[in-house]
């Protein structure tokens, strides 16, 4: 009986779709062996295989006529920057919606409280204690990293950033040329006139911050001097705040394009991180953060005089975005 089964199986011709899958290399190794052994002893199936191979080639050739001109592929970093901008924009919208929802809720509670009290205070009084700053937040938040610069006056830059945004702030007139210019020359444009404070470094084991960083890639904790030597002597940090850790990822030797994360502690005990590196790496790191973030483009000249503009700087931490914006202007 098994012998008859085998004979029947050998006599059965290979179905057309199996030959397509065989030629498309979509079958397992054992299926291929089975088909090949059948083909070796079955001329009609060999003929079918040859005609299917011809059909397959002809289809590919016909489809090839329907090809567009060879596309010009944009730089990966450009698309990455677009993706990051969208992520940050979405976060701002979510925050704005959150504030709007909280205000609506407060108004609703006030109205309910008012109707319960009956002859209680008028609705305006119930609304009065609400914080007014968040209402203005979507407009006062920077629409793009660059706009951060023109909305903050030099006076404000020099002052100590407050952890909580000012309740009301009159919008200041925009300066078009400043708003379009990227952050250049290591922020010297905004640093003019600000006295340099001596750097205070406080070394704390890196494990304390390890949870904040994505696991992908090898992170190294380095000394301040070592980090400076490694990244062409510039580790961006917020001036005037103690440095807790300096962490570096990638490019230990040579190419001079590491990703650096400087963690600094505010007087309130909160931490902020200043990140600088290639756009793709910074974007990837930011995609793991859920809190407020401000970003800026960076242009700098390397040793050979070639202009590098594929780098990005960002500050994030659990403080209001206005404070981060102010910190950004104090980056040295």
């Amino acid at each position: 009986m098994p012998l008859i089964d085998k004979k029947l199986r050998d006599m059965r011709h290979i179905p057309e779709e199996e030959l397509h899958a065989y030629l498309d290399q979509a079958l397992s190794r054992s299926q291929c062996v089975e088909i090949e052994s059948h083909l070796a002893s079955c001329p009609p199936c060999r003929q079918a295989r040859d005609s299917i191979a011809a059909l397959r080639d002809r289809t590919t050739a016909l489809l090839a006529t329907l090809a567009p001109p060879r596309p010009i592929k944009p730089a990966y970093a450009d698309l990455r920057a677009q993706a990051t901008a969208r992520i940050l924009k979405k976060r701002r919208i979510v925050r704005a919606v959150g504030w709007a929802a909280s205000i609506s809720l407060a108004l609703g509670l006030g109205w309910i409280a008012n109707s319960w009290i009956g002859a209680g205070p008028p609705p305006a009084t119930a609304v009065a204690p609400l914080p007014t700053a968040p209402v203005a937040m979507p407009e006062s938040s920077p629409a793009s990293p660059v706009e951060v610069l023109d909305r903050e006056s030099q006076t404000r830059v020099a002052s100590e950033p407050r952890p909580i945004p000012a309740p009301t702030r009159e919008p200041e007139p925009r300066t078009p040329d400043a708003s379009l210019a990227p952050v250049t020359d290591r922020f010297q444009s905004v640093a003019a006139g600000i006295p340099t404070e001596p750097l205070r470094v406080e070394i704390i084991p890196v494990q304390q911050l390890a949870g904040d960083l994505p696991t992908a890639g090898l992170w190294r904790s380095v000394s301040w001097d070592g980090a400076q030597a490694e990244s062409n002597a510039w580790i961006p940090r917020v001036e005037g705040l103690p440095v807790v850790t300096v962490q570096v990822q990638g490019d230990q030797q040579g190419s001079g394009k590491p990703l650096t994360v400087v963690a600094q502690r505010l007087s309130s005990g909160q931490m902020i991180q200043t990140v600088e590196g290639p756009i793709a790496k910074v974007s990837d790191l930011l995609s793991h953060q859920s809190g407020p973030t401000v970003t800026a483009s960076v242009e700098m000249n390397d040793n050979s005089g070639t202009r590098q503009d594929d780098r990005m700087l960002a500050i994030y931490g659990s403080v209001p975005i206005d404070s981060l914006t102010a910190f950004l202007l104090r980056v040295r």
Partner: protein
Amino acid sequence: MTDDLKHLYETTYAAVVRFLYRKVWDPDRAEDLAQEVFVRAMKHNPDKPRAWVFAVAANLARDEARAAVRRKRHLTLLKSDPTPLTSPQRSAEDLVEHNEKLERMREALHALTPRDQEVLLLWDAGLSYPEIAEQTGLAVGAVGTTLARARRRLVDAFDRQEAERHAAHS
């Protein structure tokens, strides 16, 4: 994951543009949509980026087609010929011949059912049988059957048009 996406972008961008071009018939629009696909992939960081990229490309192309249908409802005529591909090396006659062939080929492709078209284009874009199955909802075993039918129908449709053209010229 970032490196995976970057590698995918470097190796698949042209295939995604080609896939989209065969749906929207406009090379510039195909490139715009392909870039949109990869920006979305970077934003979402999908687990299976290759399959994800083609699934989103197919959805964008579908949205584009719907928008085109809506436009057609308002405008009486907007013939959506594929943009003729020009080349300085070709003579005018060659160019006419080439563009006629392009048009016949396009009609042959449109003679297939939407499913056959999709499977064929996904295969031509380099997707494996399991990836095609996942995107189209077919069983993996049915991909070979669909592909066999689609290939046969495409060639038959094209040959039929060639024969009609020869009959018309003679």
